[in-house]
């Protein structure tokens, strides 16, 4: 489980938030809301260990995430607001390589199945640089389909640029993950109702 104690975030000269506390258990959905620039992305990046908090700590199973290092990162899947796709590589290559680097070995068949789920089976040999914004997001989201063994998902605006069918599909996957005892932290502007065993709403900049 992931817990935050008295987190504080300072960017440049501005204090975005301070005194933030929460604890995520299996089945917890952490829904982060707030206006632009309220520190939503910063909070998610902090939860991954990409950003050092100005004050406070984040613990994974009672160990600070920096110290839990490898063990923490092998339980984590992070989808940033950048898709993390190489323009020169095709969808299947991108999917396999990024999961490989994240420590999940997938073969060609699994990658194709995940792209099929994303509705991109036909385009899997196309370089990602030639895909549309929404299609690229779907390639990135296909990582989720193959990361169900990772308990903690941290998703920055997962529904951006997606069509209705893709939003539904992604939402179902998130709901399944939560129902199966996973933990999900996400930010979103859209109103996408997600049912979870426990929902922790966090309102930033309020």
């Amino acid at each position, binding site marked *: 489980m992931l817990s935050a104690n008295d987190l504080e975030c300072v960017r440049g000269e501005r204090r975005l938030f301070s005194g933030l506390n929460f604890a995520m258990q299996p089945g917890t959905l952490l829904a982060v809301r707030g206006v632009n620039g309220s520190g939503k992305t910063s909070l998610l990046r902090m939860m991954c260990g990409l950003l050092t908090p100005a004050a406070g700590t984040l613990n994974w199973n009672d160990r600070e995430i920096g110290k839990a290092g490898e063990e923490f*990162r092998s339980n984590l899947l992070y989808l940033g607001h950048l898709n*993390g*796709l190489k*323009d020169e590589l095709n969808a299947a290559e991108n999917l396999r390589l990024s999961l490989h*680097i994240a*420590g*999940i*070995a997938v073969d060609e068949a699994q990658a194709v199945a995940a792209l099929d789920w994303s509705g991109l089976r036909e385009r899997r040999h196309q370089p990602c640089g030639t895909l549309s914004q929404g299609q690229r997001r779907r390639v990135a989201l296909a990582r989720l389909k193959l990361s169900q063994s990772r308990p903690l998902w941290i998703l920055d605006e997962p529904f951006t640029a997606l069509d209705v069918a893709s939003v539904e599909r992604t939402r179902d996957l998130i709901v399944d993950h939560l129902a199966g005892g996973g933990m999900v932290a996400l930010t979103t502007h859209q109103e996408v109702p997600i049912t979870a065993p426990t929902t922790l709403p966090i309102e930033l900049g309020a």
Partner: protein
Amino acid sequence: MNNTSLIDCMTTVIARDLRIALRRRADVMTSLIFFVIAVSLFPLGIGADPVLLRTLGPGVVWVAALLACMLALARLFASDHADGTLEQLVLSPQPLSMLVLAKTAAHWLTTGLPLVIIAPVLGLQFGLDSEALLILIASLLLGTPTLSLIGGIGAALTLGLPGGGALLALLVLPLYIPVLIFGAGAVEATAAALGATAHLSILGALLLGTIVFAPWATALALKIAIE
């Protein structure tokens, strides 16, 4: 879905970067062409006296190789930073310093190694004899990986900064000096019939020391850069 091992992960990174380089051949060619042009400019600037050229040859080839290596550095992390794959590398369960080492190895294979291969041709332009050419290859083979590794620190520190190119040169070039001295010195020593073993051994020692230290510093710098 099994977990991947460290070696697995490193070879994946190398294979990925090589594949991308293969699909962006123009990028690889530019630093090579820069190297050839820069070396070819010197005789035009200083005259075509064969004796003078033979004396200056090793130094000129080495300085040009060093500048070509430096120019290629900007590409080491820039595209990974821009498209978000750098975050994935940082969040990999494997230690970032080892992934950095893999990335640098791929970068050297596509930028340093071509310089080593083309260098003897340029050495011929300067009238170096076959023994000196051999030592030139050996010194570049030992020296250019060190340049890539040290350069990685500078590339990581200047990631995403405006005017990063000039700053990168200021940060990295002073650190390149020992490699330059022993690299060009090895060829000069051969030309003077002094033997280059000592120079090459020191280049080897510099490479080993850099392999241990530079990836760690680069990983630290990358984590700072993406905050």
